[in-house]
């Protein structure tokens, strides 16, 4: 078998594919952050908690009401999105126009409260969620065994990412959104309900996080603290991609999944640090990020 730096090619292909799968999660999460920051200039530290709510919600909906995976895939993001709209309406709106640090602290506080409440009720050792039957098993690709569910994660994440990018960059609704955040008074004058637009945008951003949470429920352990770890990584991804760049967030997310996957193969102990290393280098060379506009 051919080798690269002592690693068999087959193992390497496997790791690349795993990297893309993890990258799909990073892409979904950083996309939501980028939408919220790009359009509302809010640094959403509650994003990890929303991802967690999506996953916890999926499990709780199943345990209490018997809601199946496919319904949860739709219902959980809608419920979490509603929570997001309420947070925007009752809390974030009060500090609109203030320095970024206020939204950062506020959302961080909200995240800690949610995490604390759920930890109190469910503990931290994790809830159980069974894989939907249709995804059980997998296919042998020759170089690795690919579980059906992981393949589905890539497909679902790519569809949602592309759809979001298309909506914001190419449709009329997206144009309103972008214009409303550029000059909200002018848009109000044209008869557009900008506050509503802002609420819905925040709600949509956290829906993306909740969607990622539902995708994560069958394969990662579902705990009230699952969002706090991934949040930091995702912030690094957004910074690397360029704050507020929608397309950049998607591409960087997948790219960083692959970088992390390769590090896990060649030097595992560094795998949790490598993304931050990339972030440092990017910030030194291109402070506005790989895909960010020069300030």
């Amino acid at each position, binding site marked *: 078998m051919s080798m690269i730096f002592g690693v068999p090619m087959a193992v390497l292909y496997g790791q690349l594919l795993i990297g893309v*799968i993890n990258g799909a999660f990073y892409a979904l999460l950083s996309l939501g952050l980028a939408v919220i920051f790009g359009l509302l200039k809010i640094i959403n530290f509650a994003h990890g908690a929303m991802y967690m709510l999506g996953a916890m919600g999926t499990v709780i909906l199943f345990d209490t009401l018997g809601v199946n995976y496919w319904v949860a895939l739709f219902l959980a993001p809608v419920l979490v999105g509603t929570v997001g709209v309420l947070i925007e309406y009752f809390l974030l709106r009060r500090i609109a126009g203030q320095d970024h640090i206020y939204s950062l602290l506020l959302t961080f506080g909200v995240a800690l409260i949610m995490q604390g409440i759920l930890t109190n009720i469910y503990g931290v*050792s994790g809830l159980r969620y069974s894989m939907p039957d249709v995804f059980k098993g*997998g296919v042998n690709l020759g170089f*690795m*065994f690919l579980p059906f569910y992981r393949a589905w994660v890539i497909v679902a994440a790519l569809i949602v990412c592309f759809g979001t990018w298309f909506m914001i960059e190419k449709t009329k609704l997206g144009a309103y959104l972008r214009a409303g955040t550029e000059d909200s008074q002018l848009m109000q004058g044209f008869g557009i309900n900008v506050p509503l637009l802002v609420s819905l945008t925040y709600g949509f951003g956290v829906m993306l996080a909740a969607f990622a949470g539902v995708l994560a429920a069958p394969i*990662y352990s579902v705990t009230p603290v699952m969002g706090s770890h991934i949040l930091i990584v995702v912030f690094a991804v957004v910074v690397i991609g360029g704050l507020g760049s929608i397309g950049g967030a998607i591409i960087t997310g997948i790219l960083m999944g692959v970088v992390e996957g390769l590090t*896990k193969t060649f030097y*595992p102990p560094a795998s949790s640090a490598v993304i931050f290393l990339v972030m440092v280098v990017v910030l030194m060379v291109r402070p506005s990020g790989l895909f960010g506009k020069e300030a």
Partner: protein
Amino acid sequence: MRRWVENDNVDMVAGLVASSVTIATTKVLEENNKLGLVNGSAASSITNEHCTPNHIHYAYDTYPLANGTAGAIVKEGGKTWYILTADYAFGHSMEKDVTAVVEKNGGEVIGSIRHPFPTPDFSSFILQAQASGADVIALANAGADTTNAITTAAEFGVTQAGQTIAGLVVFLTDVHALGTEVAQGLQLTTGWYWDMNDEARAWSDRFMEETGARPTMVHAGIYSSTIQYLNAIEKTGSDDSQIVRKQMMDTPINDMFATNGRIREDGRMVHDMYLAEVKTPEESSGEWDLYKIVRTIPADEAFRPLADSSCKLVSSK
């Protein structure tokens, strides 16, 4: 912690989770001559090189976990091992203990990975372990890392392909989170199981009523050690840590938690340990009906013998 013992006049601290924290805490207890009852932490070094006259390690430690689980699996024919190690003090000491046990029993460790702690996604490491072709993939990690690794291994068809997963630190709550479908057949060593005898069951029913969950060996250990501590105070009429500790050492422990228990001079409470196997979904009759006890490991075999101890309190040193 320092405030508790120095300002608030706290005499005894129970629980103590996370080995690294515990080791630091026991130094403070020693300076102030108070007493700690360690139940949550795993590292066997707590009563070995880090022993003090001011703490007792009660429920379990890494030594019997490695010995019980790894020893049993090697004897059943799992000769080649690949270890996934959590990259911090506890993981390293677990890896060392396991390697020693495997080699002593005629097995071989053919590879290992040190993964960051915590690791949310294990697919990459599982894939590498799978590619190694080892008979056994051992998990020298704990908590969410262990459950994540086991779930991922099931997803990637590791056990179906004939490899065995050995979880080294597995709690009842971990197995509960995994479910019997994923965890079935997993072998583990535990200091206690809620359903193992009438006394344990009766106590667990009370615990269940209060909390809505079944207790792990840590919960039971904390309860048992605290009762022993209070009994000792009642007997001696003193709350001086050394008088109480002496009294606790002189009293054999047989209660809802321990069978054949006694506290040694190094502060290790030795008692019978159990090799358990997770039931299949068919065997399990309820949410918490998770283990069958395969073998009892007698107190004297289970823990590190005093002859091998590097503790300063052991008289032969």
